[in-house]
């Protein structure tokens, strides 16, 4: 029976090519616009570490007090050196790391080669297991490397390719800011987007990945200055990088790994206790106002997904909706024009269900054709999205199998939904009346 309906549908569609083309175009454009903007939205709003994001937490400590708070009472979104060090010292989470962004220059060993500027982060050794960072060669460094301020470094696969031609460089040295560091690990391809471990300094998205990771205390000891944001509510008492460390300026990102709700609650209590201690010691002159958000809540709080992306997606979905309303109208016109045919079929004993099957098949075919056109347009859309969006965001949008399947599925399902009402109307055609008027 299905093949018969298929044949009927194709014949009917051929009979009014203009109307058919119009519907296919509308569905194609509507689906392509939604899927293109969806691919961007999916890329920027995705969970960068889905298997673990609910265990990763970002603590905030209010070291500025009421005058430094934003209107909603939020404490600063980064940490001062004093607070970051205190939290690292207390070590209350399963794993944790303070981190700050650096942009040192790396001098290649070969003479005549230009020095290059790289970006990176100064972190603690627990950073790597905490974030399940993949290694190609070697590994991260140990806790004793942290405390001993070892001159070790983890480099990216890209930098390893540039400096060592891609071979394992574990044990070799790299000259960073005039100082030799021993390579202990080379990352596998790892460039998570958004840069979730330090959104306060990276703003979320960046086409260039981190090329070096150094021990935090080593970087502090060698006075490697921070790159990225430094926010102060008062001028530091002393000048220089050391002055920054002694100030209440915030510039350090912090992340902690906590298993389960109980651990989070006790860590929350710990943050409040710490703030209360600071209050008692006279450093804070206000009640504790700390925060602890898990990673998804933190990314949301920091507005990591650009609002333009959301607006585009909504407007494109609006376009799809109009296309569907349009299709409902055109299908209605198409189906009702065949009242006579329906009447004859009904009079000859066709059930309403048969009429449903026939016309939904026709709607499905229109949807499928629209979907195929939509596929082509989505491909073109994603390819040219760099033309309308900033490179760092556009680079994330990808066509993959799931996007292709989703495009087809949305096209077919949406068109069949649009076909429901016209089909319902078609199935209500009174056989007797139609025959009479003929």
């Amino acid at each position, binding site marked *: 029976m299905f093949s018969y309906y298929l044949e009927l549908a194709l014949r009917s569609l051929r009979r009014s090519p203009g109307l058919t083309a119009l519907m296919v175009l509308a569905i194609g454009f509507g689906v392509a616009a939604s899927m293109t903007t969806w691919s961007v939205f999916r890329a920027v709003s995705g969970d960068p570490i889905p298997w673990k994001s609910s265990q990763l937490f970002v603590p905030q400590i209010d070291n500025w007090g009421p005058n430094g708070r934003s209107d909603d009472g939020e404490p600063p979104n980064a940490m001062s050196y004093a607070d970051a060090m205190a939290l690292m010292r207390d070590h209350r989470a399963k794993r944790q790391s303070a981190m700050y962004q650096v942009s040192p220059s790396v001098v290649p060993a070969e003479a005549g080669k230009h020095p290059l500027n790289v970006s990176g982060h100064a972190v603690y050794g627990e950073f790597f297991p905490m974030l399940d960072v993949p290694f190609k060669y070697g590994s991260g460094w140990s806790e004793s490397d942290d405390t001993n301020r070892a001159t070790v470094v983890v480099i990216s696969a890209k930098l390893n390719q540039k400096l060592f031609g891609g071979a394992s460089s574990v044990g070799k040295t790299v000259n960073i800011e005039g100082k030799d560091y021993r390579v202990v690990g080379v990352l596998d391809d790892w460039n998570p987007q958004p840069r979730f471990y330090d959104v306060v300094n990276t703003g979320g998205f960046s086409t260039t990945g981190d090329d070096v990771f150094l021990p935090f205390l080593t970087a502090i000891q060698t006075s490697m200055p921070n790159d990225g944001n430094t926010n102060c509510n008062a001028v530091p008492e002393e000048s220089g990088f050391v002055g920054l460390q002694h100030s209440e300026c915030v510039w350090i990102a912090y992340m902690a790994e906590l298993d389960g709700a109980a651990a989070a609650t006790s860590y929350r209590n710990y943050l409040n206790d710490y703030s209360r201690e600071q209050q008692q010691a006279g450093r804070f002159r206000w009640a504790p106002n700390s925060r602890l958000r898990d990673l998804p809540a933190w990314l949301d709080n920091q507005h990591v997904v650009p609002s333009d992306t959301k607006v585009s997606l909504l407007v494109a979905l609006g376009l799809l909706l109009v296309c569907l*309303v349009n299709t409902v109208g055109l299908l209605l016109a198409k189906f009702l024009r065949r009242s006579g045919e329906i009447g004859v079929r009904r009079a000859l004993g066709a059930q309403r269900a048969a009429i449903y099957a026939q016309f939904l098949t026709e709607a499905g075919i229109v949807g499928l054709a629209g979907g195929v056109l939509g596929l082509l347009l989505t491909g073109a859309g994603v390819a040219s999205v760099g033309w309308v969006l900033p490179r760092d965001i556009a680079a994330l949008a990808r066509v993959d199998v799931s996007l292709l399947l989703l495009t087809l599925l949305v096209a077919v399902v949406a068109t069949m939904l649009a076909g429901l009402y016209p089909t319902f109307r078609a199935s209500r055609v009174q056989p007797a009346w139609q025959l009479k008027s003929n």
Partner: protein
Amino acid sequence: MQIKPILTAMRHHKAGTVLIALQIALTLAIVCNALFIIQQRTARMSRPSGVDEANLFVIRSDWTDKSDAQRIDAQMQADLIALRQLGSVQDAAPTNSFPLRGSGWDNFIKLQPDQVKMTTDAAMFFSDDHTLATLGTHLIAGRNFTASEIGAQRPRDAMHAAQVIISKDLARRLYPDGSVLGKTIYVSMGRGPATVIGITDTLQAHMISSWANAYAYNAVLVPARLLNDYTYYLVRARPGQLDAAMRDAPKALYAQSRMRIIDRKDGVMSFAQVRQRAYERDLGMAILMGIISVVLLAITAAGIVGLTSFWVGQRRKQIGVRRALGATRGDILHYFLTENLLIGFGGVLVGAVLAIGINLWMVTQFEMARLSLVYVVSGVVVLLLLGQGAVLGPALRASRVSPVEATRSV
């Protein structure tokens, strides 16, 4: 033309009428908001920067050895002499940042040292006595820095600017009566008073995020060379020699010293590139909204053509009867145009409410501005005209139905 019979006839094809009206309503709601977004973005993009954009470019030079501040300072002064001596260069100045850069330093500005909340926020541009000439920005009051007033400092040093030059928008914000010249302000969170010695014409800040809209034209020129890990050189080419200057300048810097990194990709940027980079998001949004609006209008028009054609086909016999009873071609044409106008009115009425509703919702969600009613009104006009245009073809066809049709069966 009588409206009542049209309304009666419409009752016979309620579904189609509602669908067209719904489509018009949704299209109006979306297109109004899309056009409004386009207008907002293009208005942002065409804001003036206050500098001589056609002849200006910037070079970023990263020092390979950042340890010795004094050597960096000496190198910067040598660099500047070399740049200013180039034939294609009119003037050059060192800075930490520049208009439209996107990131940089901004500082709270206060009028009293013990003020708790800021008076306003402003961009800090480290400058020397050549900066104004390099930017091509004029002083409208007061005087320029003298060479002896230019200090040098590292980024984390406390800033002690005894004199500053401020932009006219900042001046107006601080002293609306215009008496800011010679007054002291606090540009460094309450530390050290700075005397305002000059006021520039319009000068845009580096901040371009929407949070900084209120401060977009607040700039403070601080008389110092910033001894950072990198420096920007602003270079103004002689008229018409931008390309030559952009080629000469990096060569001249490398000839001074090779212990620097000038990025191949974006180490040297013309101001046109700076502007493009600053507003690429806005341009992208405007283009995307433009494409969607055009597609929407086209689809809505096509939908009206499709459905009306169907109605005309359905009603050939009735039209024939009316023609046989003496209706002129013009009557038939008017009938369909009026019918469409009535549906259109229904649609735009709902659509206008929807457009404003969507906008109000977006205002709360996405820091968007309030939709101006001009957009709703012009959207209404556009959609009614679009509807009339779309229905014209089918209506003309209807008007050509001959009275003979009345005698035919279907």
